[in-house]
């Protein structure tokens, strides 16, 4: 068996991990601390780490200050889910074609797809606004879903293509021999085999769609009821005062559902990526 870590190496690894995690988790810790402080003590200077009046009141009051908060949290999840489903529906056939079939302009069109990665919504904001206006999608959920899908298709194709390439081609050939149509083979042979890859792509797309809702939401949607959480949070900035403690509480509460889902999926994510989706 390969050599084990010596005790001092293990200690060193743990110290490094703790430093690494401190950097990663510090903003969350800070948000949590701020959410516990009563508003009048939030702006106390000089800085005080501990106050004896910590309370969870903000977690109760936030629902009253911004009545639509629950809706914003669900909107965020709904938008990201819709983006994921539509992206998968477009990406699965395309990724299959790039993984398995030979056709003219295959490499050219694939590079063009990947070239889309060079644009973000922010570069194309004004023409994109006009296109959405022409299509009548402004101020609807679609205004946030449609651009999200477009910018995630390339990554989706890239990830899933790598995964499908790793599936043994013999199974499909066997299905053809038995007289199955191409579409049937794709649906009943390739798709079930690609499930781990679909989890990877689905999770990556969902995260991409969930993490980047702010810009499209504030630019393409004016209707409060449709706003996702990152945009809705700024309602805590009122005319009179900013209830920062409630904003922090709402931010932490709002991302909880997705964090919990991710907790269950992350194992499959690493396993799926390892299985070869990112090779090449």
């Amino acid at each position, binding site marked *: 068996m390969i050599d084990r870590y010596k005790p001092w190496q293990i200690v060193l690894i743990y110290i490094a991990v703790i430093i690494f995690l401190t950097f990663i988790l510090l903003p969350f810790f800070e948000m949590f601390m701020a959410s516990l402080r009563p508003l009048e003590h939030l702006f106390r200077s000089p800085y005080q780490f501990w106050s004896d009046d910590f309370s969870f009141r903000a977690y109760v009051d936030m629902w009253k200050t911004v009545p639509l908060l629950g809706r914003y949290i669900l909107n965020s999840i709904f938008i990201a889910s819709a983006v994921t489903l539509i992206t998968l529906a477009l990406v699965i056939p395309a990724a299959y074609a790039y993984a398995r079939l030979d056709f003219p302009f295959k490499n050219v069109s694939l590079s063009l797809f990947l070239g889309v990665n060079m644009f973000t919504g922010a570069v194309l904001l004004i023409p994109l606004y006009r296109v959405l206006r022409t299509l009548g999608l402004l101020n609807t959920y679609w205004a946030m879903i*449609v651009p999200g899908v477009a910018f995630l298709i390339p990554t989706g194709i890239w990830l899933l293509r790598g995964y499908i390439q790793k599936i043994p081609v013999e199974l499909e050939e066997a299905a053809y021999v038995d007289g199955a149509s191409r579409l049937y083979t794709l649906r009943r042979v390739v798709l079930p085999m690609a499930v781990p890859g679909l989890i990877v792509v689905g999770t990556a797309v969902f995260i991409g769609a969930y993490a980047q809702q702010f810009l499209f939401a504030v630019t393409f949607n004016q209707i409060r009821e449709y706003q996702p959480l990152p945009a809705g949070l700024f309602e805590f900035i009122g005319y009179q005062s900013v209830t920062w403690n409630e904003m922090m509480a709402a931010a932490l509460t709002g991302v909880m559902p997705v964090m919990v889902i991710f907790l269950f999926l992350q194992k499959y994510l690493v396993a799926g*990526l390892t299985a070869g989706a990112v090779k090449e």
Partner: protein
Amino acid sequence: MSQTWFAWALILPAILFIAIIVAWPLVETVRLSFTNAKINSESYVGFENYAKLMESRKFQQTIIRTFYWMILSVSIKLLLGLIGAALLNATVPGKALFRVLVMPPWVIPIAIGMIGWLWLYNGHFGILSGAAQFIGILDGPFEFLAYKSSAFYSAIVADVWVGTPMVTLFLLAAMQGVSKDLYEAAWVDGASRWYRFRRITIPQIMPVMVSMALLSAIWTFNSFEIIWILTEGGPRGATTTLIVDTYKVAIGNFKFGQGAARAVVIVILLAAFSGVYLFFLEKVNRRYGTK
């Protein structure tokens, strides 16, 4: 022949979608860049917008700043990602927990993470300034986002924070994909842990590293929300990258034409950068024999 039709039928929906939502707006952007379009007016001005950009010293500084921002941030992300992945790949108790705890900055909306950083960087109420005063590094509150160079590097740290988890995860997956036989064979030959990391792990994950680096570079170059929420490009333009500048001109000042010209410059610079990068990627691939 039928395979060609079938292939294109499979790709067509995705192509149509991209054509309408990305390609058409791109064509429109190029057209707008030759006009002085504002909200309700628009007329052709030729290369005037570009000529203005060429002359502007401020714009040249913005380009340099953007590349500095990208190269510095991506280098740190890759370095931290590599260290993080190596740490998470070590077989020590608790590694499953560590793996979960590294992911949150990637999973949550960027705008929400930035609210946390805004608070951290606050001189009066933030823990960073507070801790620095407690230890004695500072003798008064320090506003991280109020001064030119501290704002720039503070924004870099926040950008690194957002980008590192994903790099870590992909490199971790790549490391786990390396065949155990290679390590055992090297171990039998008496290779040290560090030697195995350098001569087996690094070359084996190189293909993932280089493609990750390009993707990360493009995203960092276009990183908008992070800067916008932290500083809106200030103070005095210190954190204004090309994408922030474009947004400010086009959306902030409603100068659609001039904004479009900036957008086109972004696309040209990124295409050139990607081209040069892929040229070198080809060389790396040949050297490590992965293609």
